[in-house]
């Protein structure tokens, strides 16, 4: 019976880890809200509810340390909390961090060390306003509560003319018989009065170090004290007269009980709204998606086979029905594919909601004031992409706050508001999702970037002179430059931007910079909506089949080799009224082939237009991308491969990388280098993909 229980436990823990993540994000969110809108007790309730759920969940998983920490925080958040809202926000932040570390150590299977949420020993307990009879504050004596009956006894003793003394005794730590000490003290006091009560009520097996007695006596306090002071047994004695209340009135709670305002607590977590939420492992969805991919390939094969079979079929057979069936099949398949894709889509909000907290923290560290604006949090994005871009995005945001934005003083001096503004926006653009990180800070100075690049030996002086502004800015993503310490102070950027770029390229996305000196910088991340299936345009270069995402192609032009001109070492084509720079994917033909027909695919990345020179077009196709691992393809120019219905392998060209290569390398060399590279890579990748496809 233990195994299934273990499995169940593991499943529960898995659910816990996922929901804990969401809870912690909500906690940060609410804490931030509280910090900005102090006095909003609704938010305090929201925080409390989040902590409450976390506590319950962790308790169910047996995560004691976390349960206790959450419990402590929950108490601090009680209605009659001793903390101000500012303090509570701070506590909640700290708690979120602490819980986060605890959750991750549980995730690793380790037991976190128990921690305190509240550092300052401030207790939230509403001061217990007890009117109980109590001696004037004597050391620990204040903790003793005499029962109603004992108080009644005291009262009655007073009425009989005795006085009632509270005798507090500390047993000598060196006393050899602590258990007997209690009895010795009681014996010693018996002659001078009547012991009404003793605390602790019963002797403990270990012996008690502290004894509190209630003594009704006719003797003076000094005499009692003398009796109680037994050498080597009793270390300290304090004797005080007990103030007697005339009637043992039961203590009055008055208005200090929790109010019924509980019922109004209904703020909502951001994000949790759907009625039915099923949590499944992402890999399960991936498996389905993969199968759908295979189905699409199967569909192509079926159609291919049918086309080949068609001429041999007699007209009167069920050809019509066969065609209908194929059409229906294709339609359902595309619906199926769309539905599966949707499963993987999650709002970018899941990613963006961590940023208010990060921005706040970084701004605090740097002593800056930053206003964070988030647009388009409801934009959908493939979940796997979301996870991967989280880190680069965080990087950009941190950079923007710490380096992009100026200090308040500097801003005021240059006529800006003291408060810096950071905007995170997200929107769909075709089959792409764009995420922008825009600050209104100091901007990047291209001249200084150039100077730095030359100094570092990344480019020659000569090259530097020729670089356009855009090309210059792209230097920021060079590893050599970005890891240099100094770049930070020069450009305000540079820490690990090469990593950002690398991640995005791996995702078949891109990153761009827009900047204006003194006005601010925008980083634009562009990622495909999904990784798995694309509508592609197939074309041939040098006898091989390639594909590019269809949505990237703005226009297809037909032309001849002789219409291509060389301007400043760049091949260009005059297309209507503009001149289009070309990137040749194949080898440049030898002389005398001016009549050769060529196709130019105009690629519009928004910032840049570029013509891809290809030999022939081979139609449109829905491609299921098979990822190629890094060992198979070392070039970022190819982002994946796919298998067509007839079993042929097609390589998917990484547009972002090509555009990038084109703009950073001198085009004249680029053409050759590019084509060469692409071709050699193709051979290896084709072999690999074909091998896998079988």
């Amino acid at each position, binding site marked *: 019976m233990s195994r299934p229980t273990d499995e169940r436990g593991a499943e529960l823990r898995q659910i816990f880890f996922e929901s804990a993540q969401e809870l912690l994000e909500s906690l940060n969110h609410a804490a931030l809200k509280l910090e900005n809108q102090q006095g909003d007790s609704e938010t305090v309730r929201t925080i409390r509810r989040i902590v409450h759920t976390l506590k319950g969940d962790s308790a169910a998983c047996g995560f004691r340390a976390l349960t206790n920490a959450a419990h402590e925080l929950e108490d601090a958040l009680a209605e009659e909390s001793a903390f101000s809202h500012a303090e509570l926000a701070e506590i909640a932040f700290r708690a979120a961090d602490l819980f986060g570390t605890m959750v991750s150590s549980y995730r690793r299977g380790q037991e976190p060390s128990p921690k305190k949420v509240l550092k300052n020993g401030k207790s939230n307990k509403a001061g217990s306003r007890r009117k109980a009879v109590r001696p004037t504050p004597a050391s620990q004596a204040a903790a003793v509560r005499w029962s109603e*009956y004992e108080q009644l006894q005291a009262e009655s003793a007073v009425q009989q003319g005795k006085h009632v003394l509270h005798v507090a005794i500390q047993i000598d730590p060196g006393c050899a018989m602590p258990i007997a000490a209690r009895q010795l003290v009681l014996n010693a006091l018996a002659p001078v009065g009547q012991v009404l009560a003793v605390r602790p009520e019963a002797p403990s097996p270990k012996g008690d170090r502290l004894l509190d007695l209630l003594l009704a006596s006719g003797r003076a306090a000094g005499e009692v004290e003398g009796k109680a002071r037994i050498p080597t047994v009793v270390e300290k004695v304090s004797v005080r007269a007990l103030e007697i209340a005339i009637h043992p009135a039961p203590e009055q709670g008055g208005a200090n009980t929790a109010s019924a305002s509980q019922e109004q607590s209904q703020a909502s977590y951001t994000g949790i709204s759907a009625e039915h939420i099923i949590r499944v492992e992402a890999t399960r969805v991936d498996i389905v998606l993969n199968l759908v991919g295979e189905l699409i390939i199967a569909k192509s094969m079926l159609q291919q086979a049918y086309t080949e079979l068609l001429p041999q079929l007699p007209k009167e057979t069920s050809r019509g029905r066969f065609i209908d069936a194929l059409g229906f099949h294709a339609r359902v398949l595309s619906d199926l594919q769309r539905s599966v894709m949707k499963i993987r889509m999650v709002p970018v909000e899941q990613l963006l909601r961590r940023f208010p907290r990060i921005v706040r923290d970084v701004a605090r560290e740097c002593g800056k004031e930053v206003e964070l604006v988030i647009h388009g949090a409801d934009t959908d994005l493939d979940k796997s992409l979301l996870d991967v871009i989280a880190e680069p995005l965080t990087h950009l945001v941190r950079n923007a706050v710490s380096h992009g934005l100026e200090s308040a003083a500097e801003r005021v001096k240059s006529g800006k508001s003291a408060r810096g503004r950071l905007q995170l926006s997200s929107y769909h653009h075709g089959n792409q999702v764009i995420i922008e990180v825009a600050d209104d800070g100091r901007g990047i100075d291209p001249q200084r970037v150039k100077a730095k690049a030359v100094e570092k030996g990344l480019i020659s002086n000569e090259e530097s002179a020729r670089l356009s502004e855009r090309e210059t800015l792209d230097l920021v993503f060079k590893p050599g430059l970005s890891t240099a310490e100094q770049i930070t102070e020069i450009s305000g950027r540079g820490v690990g931007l090469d990593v950002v770029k690398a991640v995005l390229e791996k995702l078949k996305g891109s990153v761009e910079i827009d900047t204006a000196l003194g006005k601010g910088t925008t980083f634009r991340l562009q990622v495909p909506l999904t990784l798995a299936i694309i509508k592609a345009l197939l074309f041939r270069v040098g006898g091989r089949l390639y594909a590019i995402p269809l949505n990237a192609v703005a226009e297809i032009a037909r032309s001849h080799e002789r219409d291509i001109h060389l301007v400043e070492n760049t091949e260009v084509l005059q297309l209507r009224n503009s001149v289009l720079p070309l990137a040749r994917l194949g080898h440049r033909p030898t002389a005398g082939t001016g009549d050769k027909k060529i196709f130019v695919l105009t690629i519009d990345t928004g910032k840049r237009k570029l013509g891809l020179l290809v030999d022939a077009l081979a139609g449109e196709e829905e491609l299921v991308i098979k990822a190629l691992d890094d060992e198979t393809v070392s070039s970022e120019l190819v982002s994946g491969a796919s298998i067509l219905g007839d079993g042929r392998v097609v390589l998917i060209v990484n547009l972002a990388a090509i555009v990038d290569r084109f703009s950073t390398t001198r085009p004249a060399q680029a053409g050759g280098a590019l084509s060469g590279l692409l071709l050699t890579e193709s051979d290896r990748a084709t072999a690999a993909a074909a091998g896998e496809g079988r």
Partner: protein
Amino acid sequence: MMSSPVRVLVVDDSALMRKLIPQILRTDPSIEVVGTAIDGKFGLRKLDELNPQVVTLDLEMPGMSGIEMLKEITRSRRVPVIVVSSHSTQGAAVTLQALALGAFDFVAKPADVSARMPEIAEDLIRKIKAAAQSRGMQIRPLPEMRPQSRNGQAPKLGPSRIVAVGVSTGGPHALQVMLPQLPADFPGSIVVVQHMPEGFTDMFARRLDEMCSIRVKEAQSGDLLLAGRALICPGSRHIKVKRLPLGDVVVLNEEPRVNGHRPSADVLFKSLAEEFGPKGIALLMTGMGEDGAMGMGNVKAAGGLTIAQSEESCVVYGMPKAAIEHGFAQRVVSLDLLSTTLQAQCGPEQKPTADEAKRGAGAGSN
């Protein structure tokens, strides 16, 4: 005997709990979880859609909270609700509010839930079954009560009689009906054993104290039995009454559970019989099981008065029924008339006679 499984709806905002609770309930074939909901709004929708017999409800939820959902249920539907509650000061307060609103019962999640899971699971399953067999939510929500004036009346020593009350499921609501009806100068002293876990009784006592003219407090060892005061036994302690030279007191102890309960009504009733004989009144109210039934016998034998709450006013008719079946209940009184009966029995002109047992009537009309 068991026809079809009890249909249960689980309402909880924690994904974990929505997994865990059905898992627990699945271990019992006579219970079927027909659905789960993430908050009150969806809970209500599913309630109409799935028509469950019992609802388990988390009170702290975003959107429509459990309390609001409960109010809605009491307004229009009569599905018994079991609150799944956590151990905290706030948790106790809301839980008690829910019980006052008419929740059938609650299950407390202690901090070490995972370690005590079997115990909690059993508790939950037992309560769900009892809820399914009850006649739904027939309790009217309590009117909003303002603390009544006490006219400077303070509890006094020397109560006329000692009223020991044993109550379980449905008790929080029933006590909130009965105790506020007693006047501040009620001459008897009341001791209540309400089956309720530790941590809830203090809040419960405070809540009652706010509602009642008599004083109510959670009992501590050595508290005096005063006229015009009710002492609520704290969870996981037994309580006994005791005569002492200067006054009568209650004494708490942590002896083993009796009838599966601590506090146990039998323990209280037996001490009442031993210490107070004919001066004692034992009142056994709504609740599952048989706790208190035998103790009623002791009180009766010692010459005290024994009263059982009438069937139609009970949420669960287990304990009173057991006492009646043993022939230990001298009177059977409906909830509405309990306070009048107690006043009559404790009042100055009281004369504990063997009047014909007054049958409770007129209750349960809604």
